């Protein structure tokens, strides 16, 4: 039930969030709306590149090992107009990511929210161009 509510909330987020703005291809061809996930970890690399940005985080696992996850965001130009810059986050920043799992089972998430420790919602843009950066 809890998982169902979480999936519903995340689906609403997909509909309302700018990161659902995908012109490149259909969201559902790559991600599963029924598989929401939340991850927390330190950023190890940022790729501010087209057609969508990627960044990577290490998530601590039981036993002390770290799992390497790829996080996909929006198009660089969309994020730029929303006020974000390629150095708005830095390697080492700890981020909590909410998103949806890739359908192919890989450690890949489409980000809907990515909160930094200071509360900024990292790299979120939307279709109403020219948002103020946060």
């Amino acid at each position, binding site marked *: 039930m809890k998982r169902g509510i979480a999936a519903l909330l995340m689906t609403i987020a997909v509909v309302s969030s700018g990161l659902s703005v995908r012109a490149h291809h259909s969201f559902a061809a790559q991600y599963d709306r029924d598989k929401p996930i939340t991850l927390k970890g330190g950023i190890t690399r940022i790729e501010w590149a*087209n057609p969508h940005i990627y960044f990577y985080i290490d998530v601590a696992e039981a036993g002390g090992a770290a799992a390497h996850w790829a996080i996909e965001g929006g198009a660089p130009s969309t994020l730029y107009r929303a006020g974000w810059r390629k150095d708005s986050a830095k390697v080492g920043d700890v981020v909590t990511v909410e998103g949806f799992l890739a359908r192919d089972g890989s450690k890949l998430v489409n980000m809907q929210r990515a909160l930094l420790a200071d509360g900024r919602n990292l790299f979120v843009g939307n279709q109403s161009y020219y948002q103020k950066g946060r």
Partner: protein
Amino acid sequence: MRLARIVVAMCAVLLLVAPAAAQSAAPPDLSGFWINQYTPNLADVLGKQPPFTEFGAERWRTVDTAKDPTAICLPVGPSRGFTAPFPFLLVQHDKTISIMFEYQAIWRAIYMDGRAHPDDLADYPYFMGHSIGRWEGDTLVVDTQGIDERSWLDTAGHEHSDKLKLTERFKKTGPDTIQWTVTYEDPVYFTRPWSIERTFTRGKPGDRVLPYTCNENNKDVEHLRPHQPNLNYKHVPEPPPAKKPGGR
């Protein structure tokens, strides 16, 4: 009597000059940096599915969105260029109007010099098609053919054949808005022409076309999996148009 002659002469001059003056009125300037109205699914604007032929309906029912041509960075086509969530720069000259799309950093040239489509267009299609334009009063009317059938009309997966013809009408409705009406004709996919209307809004002063080099980091493609969202679609053909009274 003399006054009457003068009045008649003046009227004659006006009759001769007025149409010429009207014809020489400069067309509106559409140049500028414009923002699209994002439209991932044309059927959402239409309020229903387009008037599919049986073939078009089956293609829609079975379309696999993992096979979106833009997912492998093929050009967007003229329909998606104006409906994607990216702006474009329009540069207007008398003989050519150029449109530079940020999405995929691709362009369209609209030839305004009165030429026809080339005879061999079908042998040499282009993803963005071949466009010829003319002014109808204050409206730019563009006829585009020769569109590569591998392009899609939208992200949802509406496809078309190499018989697709677009007729676009660009009308400035204010200093910062253009009304764009596009009519899709394709006898392979659709039983009749159908149209949608969108609005372009002027971008902020100083904004610019930003980089969109699709292939620089297209990691998505290796993660795409078959996805057929319309398998439950049931095609209901439109009833034939009612016969006009007295018609044969």
